[in-house]
Each structure stands twice: as C-alpha cells, then as structure tokens.
C-alpha cells in the first residue's frame, strides 16, 4: 500500500457533510430521473449518507459515486467512478453513477478537454475512495473498540481479521459520515486493483440503446419555450435590420429579439464571430424553424469577405516570405543543409474542419435578474458560468450549471457561446427556454479547426545519416508545430519556425489540436526521408529514438524516447511488420501527444480498383488502463475519425460564408469506408494513467498516406485525400 497525505492539493471536497435523508442531492427532477435502469443487486436505500463530494452510501450498502467531469463520449462517466470504487473497495455492481453538477468548491477542473480528465483526476479520485474507506473502518473500529489496523475491507464489507466478525459499509455509513477526514490514507498497490483494469460496460449503455432522455437536446421543463437564432450569413457581416413584425405574427411565435453576447472581458472560451444575432422564441421546434426560414434580414459588411483561394494564397505566401517566429534552433541548420549530400523538401496542407458533433449545439436557460440556471452540454461549465455572470451582471454564486450527457464534444463545446445566447434570451424574455442550433447554424457558426500548411526539410549526408531537419508551420490564427516534440532531440541541427495568419473566421481546438494535422504531415515526411535513406521506416525511426536515448540534443524535449520506441516496437512485433504478404500494402506512423504514445500500422489492399483498409494495428502507452473496454473503443473511434477527416472532410469559404452547410455537401466517413478490423495493444507498465480521448487520432493519417504510397506509388501532401482521386470502399 502507498501512504499519501490527504490534504495535498485538496480544498473542501473532503469536508464531511451531514446525512441527507431519503433523497437525491440533486434536486432537479429531470436530471435525477436519470437513475439506473439496470438491475442493481440491491434496491434503492431509504437514506443516503454523504461521505464526501464523490461518494454517498445508502444504509443497505448501495453506493452512489458522482462523476465530476463532463461526459462527451470519452466514457469518463464510467472510468472516473471506477477509480473511486477501486479505492473505496466496493463491488462495481452495487455502484450507481451520477453526473455531478458544476461545483468549484467541491471539485477541481470540471473540464472535458486535452485528454486530461483521468490524468489530472487520478490522485483525487483515488483519495476520495480511500478516505471514505478509511472513515468506514474508523467508524467500525470505534464501535467495536478495536484498532483500525485490525480491520480489513473487501467488496463493501469490513472484517475484524482476528475474530472474523464483519459488518457492511451500509451499516457504518451513518457513523462514518460524522467523522473527521483522516490526515493520511493508504492507497492500494496497483497490483491489487480489482476494478481498474477490468473491461467495464458504459454506465449509460442501456439508457442509450433505449432512447432515454440523456442529452441536452432532450431536456424539458414545464413551461419551457424553444428558441433558435439567426446569425449573419458570412464572417465579416453584421446585422442591419429584419422583418420583425412579420416574424412576430407567425403561428406559435412569442418573442423575436436581437441579442448581443459580446463579453465585457473575453476569456479564452469566448470565441464567437457572431455576437449580435436575431433570436426567435416559440412554442415548438418546427414553428420556430418555419419562422426562422421566413426571416428577411439585412446585413452589412464590417470586415472583408474571405474565401478559400485567398487563404491558400496567404498560407503559401507566408511560407515563402512571411514573418517567422524562431521557435527552436539546435546546432547549425544552415550549415548542415549546405553540406548535405541530399535535401528532401515537402509541403503538406489541410483545410478548415467543422466539429460536427452529432448533437448540434443547444442549451437550456432559466434566467432572471438575480439568478441564472443553465442545463446542457458543455465541456467547460465553470467558464460558461463565469461568462454568464459577467455578461448579465448576476453574482457568480447565483449561477448554476448542470451537465447533461453530450452528443459529442471534440472541442466545439469548449466554447460556450450558445450558453450565453440561451441565458440572454431567457433573461430578456423572462421565460425558460431551450436554444437549439439547426445543423446549418452549427456548421456555419463554428469554431473551426484552422487551415494549416507546413514545410519540412531534411538533410542527409553521404552515409544517409539525418544531419539536419527544419520545420516551418503556418496556419490561420496559429502555427501547427510543437517545436519540442519528435524529432527534436534526435537531430543535431534542427530548426523550427512558426507563422500565423489573421482572419475574421473563428478557429479553435478540434480533437487533438494542431496534432490532428502535424502528426500525419510529419509521419508522411519521415516515411519519405527513410525511403530516401534506403531504410525501413520503423528502423529509421528507432535509430532516431536511439540517438535521443544515448545522446539527446537540447534539454526540453517533450517526450520520453524509450516509451516512444516502445510502442513502435510493440506494433512492429504484433503486426509482424517484417513479414511481407502479397497484396497487402503497409504504412506505419507513431506520435506522442496528450502525454500518451501511439504507434499504428495500417494494412491496405486493392479491391476492384478501390483502396480497402483491411486492418489497423494500434499500440498505445497511456500508463495504467482504467477500463480496457472503453479504452479500446476510444482508440478505434480515434482511428476511424482520423481516417475520415484526412480522407473526406473539407470546409471551404466563398465571400465569407462556408460553402458546406450540412451533411449533403460536407463529407464525413461512412460505414463502408472504415477499416474492416482494428486491433489495439496496450503497454503494461504500471505508470500513472494518461489520456486517451485524442492521441489515437493524429498519427493515423500518416499511416494511411504511407500505406497508399506503398499501394500505388502516390505520395499525398494535401488533405482531404479524396481530392487526389483516392477512393476508399
């Protein structure tokens, strides 16, 4: 066992609160209605006793664990409570999971983003379970007049080791809830884990397949109205006027108004190009949609209209002549390129992308002059609460944000402008409303993945050794390059330069920001360099990791070359990389992001003149795997999502408007285009866990491009690949 101090980095979450009898902590009838449908081993208890902010225990031993972080499909609502249950030492079938509301006093970092929920929550989740277990033992020790150390726990029971006398958590919950928090608790040795590491089904699985109301869009409250907004048809335009009287008189419409949600003090999450919009409020969705269609609005230009040709020109020009920020320089790159026997130079590019969560943006708001209640899908509830408090001058303690399950996040719901809009509409009309974006609103009012371009250069000497490497990355609002990632540290002469381009188009985080493009570009380029050097692509990479292991260049390299090489070796062995099979063409890729290492091999075949992805092999080092079932699912999803966006997706602009407005013109990967098989392997190393929501997506576009090259001899430099006549089927 590992002894840890409980006070470390904790605030009041460990405060013991009084027993709450016979009910739910959450008073919201709709949210509380999300109770378990699966058959529990026990029936619902008569009383619940709050042990701490994560745990309440019923008198019959049933345990409720609150999952603090937003659930966007990364399965955190299952894996976070698994960690608490492990240290609490209860049987998983006696656990009910509830989504916690935003509570900055009780919980830390209630954010879904950066694949950090498990990594950053690991210690506090374990401590929440371990302190509760300790308090239950202490209550027992007091009652029996024995020492705590003479007791042992197992699956929700407490036993006196000498006499074999036993009791249950349920019997001790009332007394335990009155005790002080222990100053130190023992954490389990990972080798004793019973729940962590077991494939565990999604706690909402049965509700999902039965169509239960789980999502923001499903939320309803008595007297609630439906609202939609109309934003300007182009980036760079603002509202002049509209046919207000006509819309007001349409059937079922109660309010039509202009709202402005421009923040007084903008935070990073306040990305929104359309702060002034028309809002329509009515009785039901279809009537509001019809009124929205009948809108005749006048707009005027406020800043220049942009289009995709301009973006392409600016990106290209910025690589030639733009201002460059020097991000990293090791050795003497200029000289290395001068004395090189061979220089390889390639440029890669990718378009803007929309997030396209399957559930469009929406939020419920009931707001008065004094208080605001928000319920819905948001990855950053704390930030949304603060923004609403700031915008509407409502004290922060009077703003509540409750979380629903989310129909996808992918970064879009980090930017909660839709919550500000919902709150403002409710505030101004005095009615509880649910704001709904149409798919077109969602796709045209995005916070897009930026368009990027990157130029790589590699210098080989006459022995085919890599002696110089340079990267110049540019993009709309940001460069895609991480200067301290691989191959930084492995090349003696190394240069990274960055450029960014201004635009009136709003961009932001999209699943694995920057990595989602740069990984594929880098791994395609390394494939080409390995070929030029006459080396096997895996051997070539391993040589570079060896350089870093034996003689690292620079001190601030972000990655551990041993772990990086480890996943590459694992995927090499599992995929039998060195065995060639007729008709199978293979590409390899490896990448490190979000503290996790991933290597992939993609097997391609040609079937009736079309590329068919036969299998993807994926090796992952994310430390301890909490839930292998959910982890494999995340990995598969990241791979399919990554293939889809590299192959098909493309958001382009004309006169400031996106040309693609719905799924008839914006292509997403479909069933028939996904790999026939994906096999996932984890490195078993007992290291504290890191994230998995994002890391499997970035490298796969590199493995795909490299496999396509092996199949047809065609190198791919420009996403989406479909525009270069690559067809999957």
């Amino acid at each position, binding site marked *: 066992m590992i002894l840890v101090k409980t006070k470390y980095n904790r605030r009041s979450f460990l405060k013991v609160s009084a027993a709450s009898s016979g009910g739910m902590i959450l008073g919201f009838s709709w949210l509380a209605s999300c109770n378990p449908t699966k058959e529990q081993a026990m029936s619902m208890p008569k009383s619940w006793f709050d042990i701490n902010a994560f745990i309440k225990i019923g008198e019959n031993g049933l345990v409720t664990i609150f999952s603090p972080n937003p659930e966007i*499909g990364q399965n955190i609502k299952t894996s976070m409570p698994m960690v608490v249950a492990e240290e609490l030492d209860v049987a998983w079938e006696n656990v009910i999971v509830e989504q916690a509301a935003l509570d900055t006093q009780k919980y830390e970092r209630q954010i879904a983003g950066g694949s950090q929920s498990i990594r950053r929550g690991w210690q506090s989740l374990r401590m929440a379970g371990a302190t509760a277990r300790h308090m239950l033992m202490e209550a027992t020790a007091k009652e029996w007049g024995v020492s705590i150390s003479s007791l042992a726990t197992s699956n929700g029971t407490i036993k006196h080791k000498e006499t074999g006398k036993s009791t249950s958590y349920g019997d001790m919950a009332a007394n335990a809830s009155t005790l002080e928090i222990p100053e130190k608790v023992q954490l389990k040795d990972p080798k004793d884990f019973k729940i962590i590491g077991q494939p565990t089904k*999604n706690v909402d699985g049965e509700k999902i397949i039965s169509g239960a109301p789980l999502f923001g869009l499903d939320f309803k409250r008595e007297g609630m109205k439906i609202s939609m907004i109309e934003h300007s048809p182009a980036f760079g335009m603002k509202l002049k006027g509209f046919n207000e009287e006509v819309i007001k008189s349409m059937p079922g419409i109660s309010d039509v108004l202009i709202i402005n949600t421009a923040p007084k003090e903008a935070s990073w999450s306040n990305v929104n190009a359309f702060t002034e919009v028309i809002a329509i409020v009515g009785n*039901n969705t279809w009537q509001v949609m019809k009124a929205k269609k009948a809108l005749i609005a006048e707009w005027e230009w406020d800043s220049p209209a942009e289009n995709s040709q301009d973006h392409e020109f600016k990106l290209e020009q910025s690589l030639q002549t733009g201002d460059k920020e020097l991000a990293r320089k090791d050795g003497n790159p200029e000289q290395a390129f001068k004395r090189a026997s061979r220089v390889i130079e390639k440029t890669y590019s990718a378009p803007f992308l929309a997030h396209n969560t*399957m559930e469009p943006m929406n939020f419920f708001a009931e707001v008065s002059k004094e208080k605001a209640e928000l319920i819905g899908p948001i990855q950053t509830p704390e930030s949304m609460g603060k923004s609403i408090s700031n915008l509407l001058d409502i004290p922060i303690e009077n703003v509540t944000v409750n979380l629903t399950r989310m129909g996808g996040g992918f970064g879009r719901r980090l930017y909660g402008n839709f919550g500000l809009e919902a709150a403002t509409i409710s505030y101004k009309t005095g009615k509880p409303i649910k704001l709904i974006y149409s798919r077109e609103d969602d796709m045209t009012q995005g916070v897009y993945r930026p368009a990027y371009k990157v130029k790589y250069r590699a210098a080989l000497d006459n022995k085919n050794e890599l002696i110089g490497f340079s990267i110049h990355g540019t993009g709309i609002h940001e460069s895609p390059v991480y200067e301290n990632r691989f191959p930084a540290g492995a090349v003696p002469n190394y240069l990274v330069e960055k450029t960014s381009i201004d635009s009136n188009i709003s961009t932001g985080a999209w699943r694995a920001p920057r990595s989602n493009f740069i990984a594929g570009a880098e791994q395609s380029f390394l494939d080409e360099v390995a070929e030029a050097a006459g080396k096997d692509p895996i051997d070539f990479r391993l040589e570079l990791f060896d350089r870093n292991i034996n003689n690292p260049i620079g001190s601030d390299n972000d990655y551990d070359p041993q772990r990086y090489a480890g996943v590459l070796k694992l995927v090499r062995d599992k995929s039998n990389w060195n065995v060639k099979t007729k008709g199978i063409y293979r590409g390899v890729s490896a990448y490190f992001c979000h503290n996790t290492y991933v290597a992939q091999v993609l097997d391609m075949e040609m079937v009736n003149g079309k590329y068919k992805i036969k299998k993807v092999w994926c090796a992952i080092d994310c430390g301890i795997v909490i839930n292998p079932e959910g982890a494999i699912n995340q990995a598969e999803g990241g791979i399919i999502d990554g293939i889809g966006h590299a192959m098909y997706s493309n958001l382009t602009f004309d006169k400031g408007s996106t040309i693609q407005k719905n799924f008839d013109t914006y292509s997403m990967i479909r069933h028939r285009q996904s790999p026939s098989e994906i096999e996932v392997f984890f490195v078993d190393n007992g290291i504290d866990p890191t994230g998995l929501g994002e890391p499997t997506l970035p490298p796969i576009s590199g493995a795909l491009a490299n496999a396509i090259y092996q199949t047809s001899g065609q190198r791919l430099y420009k996403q989406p690949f479909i525009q270069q006549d690559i067809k999957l089927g």
Partner: protein
Amino acid sequence: MPEYNININGKVKKIDADTDTPILWVLRDHLDLVGTKYGCGIAQCGACTVHLNGSAIRSCSVAVSAVGNQVITTIEGISKSTEKIENIVKKAWLTHDVAQCGYCQSGQIMNATALLKTNPNPSDTDIDRAMTGNICRCGTYTRIKTAIKTAAAQLT
C-alpha cells in the same frame, strides 16, 4: 391546427400539429419521445431513423400529414418490444459496448433492426450498403458491424 390520429409504438395518438410538421418533431415535441434524434434535418445523417410499416425512414423528412394509417415504431417501441429480433439487436449493442457519445445509436439500431428483418444473414457488403446513411462522428462503425453480425448469428 389540424388533428391527426397516428399509430405510434402500438398505440394511436391524437396529435395537433401543422400539416408540414416532420414526424421527428411530432415525436420529440408533441409526444416526448426524444429517443429519435435530430442530426441534420435533410435525411443525410440517419440520427432520426424510425420504422414506418417496418421500413427504416428518416423521420426529419416525412410530414405528419403523410403518415395516414401507417404504423410508426421508434427506439422507445423497440426498447419495450418483446420480439426476438429487437431483443437480439439490443443485447448485441450492449455486449459489444458499442456507444461512445451515444447520440447516433438510436438511429443506427433502428436501421440495423430494419436490415435484419429483411435480411437476417447480411454480408459485409449488405451491412455497409444498408448502414451507409447513418453517420457516427465518434467512429463506432466497426463495433456496429460486429454487433450486427453477432445479432445475425443468433437469428440464423
């Protein structure tokens, strides 16, 4: 507002709605059957799939006035169904823990159930063809296919 009597999940429901109201919004707004999801509104993503006389249709693109005496089944109907195919499909979805965010899964299940009713032993190509209209941004396609095959294996 016109009145319609429509058979939904085995019960006739009286609905007051504009004639052009899509079945999707009748289900969601008028009947509180929110398992049928809104995804695109133009029959391109499959999230709103329901059965009309047993065939999979996109409920966002069929008006309430076009239903007449036809029978509608939604995910809530499938969920309570005691029929063999429905239960095998639901079980297969849980066995393979298919869902990630879960939003598109009602539509996927409705489409898969309709497929298995007409073709209880579909090939990979049959599955690809039948399911191609259902988008999943999370990328659960391989699990969906495995679940359909597991279900099919129990039907034949």
